[in-house]
C-alpha cells in the first residue's frame, strides 16, 4: 500500500521535475532578447492604440521609434512631457539651437451659428445623431453648413475633449484635445479642423454660400465682404468660395480682422468682448525715425519728416501692430480698446 503511494508520488514528482527542468533549460536556450527601450517607450506612449500614427497600435510605433528611428512626433496625441521623456531615453534631444518649436494642435469647430427658431428649417425629432440628421434635408438648420449639434464628434472623441455645449455647438477642451482627428472624420459637415493651439483668431464659419444667402440663414456667417482681407497688414486672409480663410503661417493674431468683421464671424478665442487694439506712442521715447510712418499701411501715423515726434490717429489705426514690431526704440504699445 505504502509502496503504491510512494511510486505514484515519485513518478509524478519526477515527471514534474523533468518537465520543469526542460522548460527552464529551454527558457534560457530559446530566450528572445527584447530591447528594454521598446518596452519603456511603449509605456510612455499614450496606449490608446488609436492608430493615428499609421502603425499597428502603440506597440508598433514603439518598435519603429527604437529600431527604425521613426520620429516621436509621428504620434499625433503624445503629450509634450512624454515626448521629451522618450527623446531623453533614446538620446534624441541633441537638437540644433533655434529649431522651430513643434506645433501643438487642437480641434477647431468652424461654426458659431445661433439656434433660435428663425434659423431653423423645421423641428427635427429623429435620432439624435449628426449622421442621421444630415440625411433629412441635410439637417434642420437654414444654413446648410450649420453644425448639426447632435454630438457625433462628442461620441467619437476618445479623450472626452469635445462636448456639445449651449446653442447646439460643440466646445473643445484644448487641454484634453490631442488632435487625433477622430472628430474631424465624424463630422458630416466637415466643420472641424486641427489648428495650432496657440492661434487665437479664427473664422468661425464654413459657409461657401453667396453672401446674401448666408446672411439670410445665419446672423454670424461669413458673407465674404472682404473687410478682413483689406484690414490684414500681413496678407494672412484670403477669400475663397465666399469664405474668409486665415493662413495661420502668416497670422500674428493682431485681431484687426476681429474688430473689423461686421458679422462677428472672426473671433478672438477666449475674448468674446474683444474690440481690437490700437497703437499708442510713448512721446518721451519717440525719436521721430519715421519707420512707423513708413510701415503703416493705413496712414494712421502722423509726421513724415525726420525728428518730428510721431502720433497715431486712433480712427485710422486698425491695431495690426506692424509699427510696434518695427519700432527701434520699442516705444509703441498695443493696447486693447
Amino acid at each position, binding site marked *: 500500500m505504502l509502496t503504491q503511494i510512494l*511510486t*505514484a508520488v515519485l*513518478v*509524478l514528482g519526477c*515527471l*514534474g521535475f523533468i*518537465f*520543469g527542468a*526542460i*522548460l527552464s533549460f*529551454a*527558457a534560457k536556450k*530559446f*530566450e*528572445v532578447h527584447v530591447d528594454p527601450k521598446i518596452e519603456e517607450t511603449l509605456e510612455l506612449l499614450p496606449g490608446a492604440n488609436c492608430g493615428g500614427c499609421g502603425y499597428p497600435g502603440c506597440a508598433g510605433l514603439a518598435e519603429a521609434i527604437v529600431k527604425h528611428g521613426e520620429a516621436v512626433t509621428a504620434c499625433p496625441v503624445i503629450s509634450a512631457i512624454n515626448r521629451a521623456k522618450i527623446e531623453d531615453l533614446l538620446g534624441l534631444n541633441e537638437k540644433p539651437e533655434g529649431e522651430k518649436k513643434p506645433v501643438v494642435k487642437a480641434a477647431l469647430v468652424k461654426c458659431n451659428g445661433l439656434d433660435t427658431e428663425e434659423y431653423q428649417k423645421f423641428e427635427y425629432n429623429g435620432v439624435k445623431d449628426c449622421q442621421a440628421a444630415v440625411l433629412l434635408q441635410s439637417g434642420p438648420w437654414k444654413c446648410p453648413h450649420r453644425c448639426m449639434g447632435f454630438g457625433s464628434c462628442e461620441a467619437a472623441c476618445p479623450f472626452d475633449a469635445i462636448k456639445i455645449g449651449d446653442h447646439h455647438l460643440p466646445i473643445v477642451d484644448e487641454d484634453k484635445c490631442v488632435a487625433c482627428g477622430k472628430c474631424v472624420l465624424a463630422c458630416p459637415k466637415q466643420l472641424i479642423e486641427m489648428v495650432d493651439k496657440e492661434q487665437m483668431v479664427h473664422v468661425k464659419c464654413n459657409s461657401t454660400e453667396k453672401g446674401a444667402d448666408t446672411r439670410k440663414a445665419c446672423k454670424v456667417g461669413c458673407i465674404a465682404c472682404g473687410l478682413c482681407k483689406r484690414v490684414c497688414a500681413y496678407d494672412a486672409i484670403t477669400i475663397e468660395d465666399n469664405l474668409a480663410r486665415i493662413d495661420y503661417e502668416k497670422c500674428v493674431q493682431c485681431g484687426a480682422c476681429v474688430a473689423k468683421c461686421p458679422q462677428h464671424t472672426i473671433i478672438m478665442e477666449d475674448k468674446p468682448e474683444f474690440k481690437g487694439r490700437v497703437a499708442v506712442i510713448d512721446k518721451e521715447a519717440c525719436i521721430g525715425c519715421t519707420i512707423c510712418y513708413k510701415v503703416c499701411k493705413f496712414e494712421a501715423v502722423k509726421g513724415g519728416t525726420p525728428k518730428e515726434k510721431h502720433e497715431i490717429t486712433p480712427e485710422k489705426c486698425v491695431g495690426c501692430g506692424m509699427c510696434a514690431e518695427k519700432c527701434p526704440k520699442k516705444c509703441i504699445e498695443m493696447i486693447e480698446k
Partner: protein
Amino acid sequence: MTGGLISIFIVAVFIENFVLNQILGICPFIGVSNKLDSAVGMGFAVTFVMVMAGVVTWGIQTFILVPLGLEYLQTISFILVIASLVQFVEMVVRKTAPALYQALGVFLPLITTNCAVLGAALLNIKKGYGLVEAAVNSLGAGIGFFFALILMAGIRERLDTAEVPSAMKGAPITFVTAGLLATAFMGFSGLV
C-alpha cells in the same frame, strides 16, 4: 494497415468530430470563431499541439504508467505533459520562427487547458492505439477541430451582417448555429 489508418482518420475528422460530435473544446469553438483569420490560427495551433501531445502522452502511458501499474495517474500526468509541451513549443516557435509565433502566439497559451487536446490523448489510450495510430487519430481530431472552427467562423462572419432578432443576437444565435452544425454532422455517422 494503411486502410485502417485512413479509416481512423476519417472517423476522427467527420464521424467522431471532437467539437460537433463529442462536444469537446467548446470554449475556443465559441470564443475564437468570430473571425476567419483567428479561427485559422487557432485551428493550426490546436492541430499541431494535439499531434505532439498524442505522441508524447502515448509514450508516457506505454513506457512509464503501464509498467509501473499507475494507469490511474493518466489524467493528471497528461495535463502536466500537455501544459509543459505547450510552453515548450511556444518558446521554440518564438525563437526559431517569429512569423509563425506572430500567427499562433496568442492562441498557444489558450490551448494549455483545452479539453479537446486532453480528450484526444485519453481516447488514444482508451481505444488501445499503437504509436502511429495514436498520431493519426490525434491529427484527425485536430483537423476535425480546425474544420468545425472554420465552418463556424465562416457562418458567424455572415451572421454579423444578417438581420438577427435583438433577443437572439450574440451568444444565443451562436449556440443555435452550433447545434444545427452538430445535427448536420450526425449525417456522417455510418460512413465507415
